[in-house]
């Protein structure tokens, strides 16, 4: 999910960059002169918004994923620490803490 959302964010960001470059070129040398109601302004804003949202989702998913991974790793270490072998018996007891 993180990779998918980041990919979407990147794709829309590249689109926004391309529109921005087009607009900069037209602002500098444009024939015809650029109009403030040119639809590319809205397209650029939309692409930037979608990109931000996708990056946000990727970031949030990454953070949640990272948190769960870290918690799982901590859990495994705790589990390892709690393995106890008692000499008095013929078996082993395993205690896992969540």
């Amino acid at each position, binding site marked *: 999910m993180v990779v998918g959302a980041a990919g979407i964010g990147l794709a829309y960001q*590249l689109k*926004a960059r391309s529109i*921005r470059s087009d607009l900069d070129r037209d602002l500098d040398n444009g024939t015809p002169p650029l*109009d403030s109601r040119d639809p590319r302004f809205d397209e650029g804003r939309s692409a930037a918004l979608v990109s931000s949202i996708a990056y946000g989702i990727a970031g949030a998913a990454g953070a949640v994923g990272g948190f769960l991974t870290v918690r799982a790793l901590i859990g495994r270490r705790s589990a390892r620490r709690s393995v106890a072998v008692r000499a008095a018996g013929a078996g082993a007891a395993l205690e896992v803490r969540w």
Partner: protein
Amino acid sequence: MRWCTALLLLATCCGQSAFDDRAARAWSRSAGAPDGISSATYAVSLTTVDREQPGATVVVAGSGPSSLSTLSYDVGGELEMHGVDVDGGFPDAPVMAGSLDPVTGGNGVVAVADGAGAVLFFDARTGDLGPAFRVSVPAEACGAAPTFGTALLFALTDPDEDVEPDLVALADDQLVVLRDLDLDKIDQDIPPDCARCSLPDGAAVALAAGAVDDDDGEDIAALAATGKRISIFTAEQVRAAAGAGCGEPLVVLTPPAADDSFAPPMSIGDIEDNDAPEIAVASIDHRVVYIFHDVSGGAPGVIPIPAPADSAAFGTSIAFGDFDGDEIEELAVGDPLASPEGVAGAGQVTLYRFEGGELKPEATLYDSEPEEGQHFGRSLDVAEFGLGGAEYRDLLVVGASGEVFTYFRVTAATEDPRS
């Protein structure tokens, strides 16, 4: 490391604000109809009014039903629009003229011919106030023909430092001048100071004003309905005629070819900044725009500007203005049936600069997303954009179907006057 840098660059660019910043820097600002009007067709005519406050004001007419709107730009280029439906209505494409009304403390005023023999005056209030009807002047007030208002313009005709505009109007073959028009007095039933004379070539269809003779007062050019002559008179001649013939014109201009004719409109400007004005007018077939050069010199030369090959309406609108701020005027020629980028009838406006004895195209303007039948350039005017104090810059205002474009710059080298 390189990947990290690339990702960082990506992450730091292209928020929505990047596009807001660029939209604010765009060279033109287009505007459709404002809220508050019911007109099915917007921008059928436009004019500009001078004002003493910084910024600029454009007045736009709509039809079906008739409406008037004001587009007010502040000195930063922020636009406020307001429109009102007009009781009684105008012709579909009303004749309009705008000016500064010095009596009302520096606000603009617009005159509109109602097509029924009267000229209506509206205050062109700025911001969100919009236009407001003020007073009307019927043809009878000046003893003029009922077609009073076939063409209208405001002119400063007094020889020295005139600040009170006269209204100049056509009514059939009559040239009518309402001297130092004071709308407050008309509102108090004090009759306007009218003068009129009969034009030697019969009915006329277009007017233009500019200082042609030696004094500073603007003189009046009238284009005969036959298209065969442009005659220029002083306002003093009109007053002296006392309703009789206008007398011998200061200057008479005829088409370069005997079988050719002129088509309205026409405009007076000065493309050399030599105090010898030029008159621009299209041929009747709109295949060429003629520039009569140094009109005050007695025997003006003619510079023809040929229409582009695919053009059918070259010169439908014409205006002179100093659009690049170099204190020398350029000529803007509208061609509403042109097909820029292959889009039929999208229309375009070409700006010409006088250089080396000829007029060279400096820029071509059309909608950055041209639309079929947009008819960009069907009307043109020049708005004086006040920068504060006595500093002004000319902005080009272009009418199209349903929208109005205001150009703050016309080329990359032009300075943007918005602060």
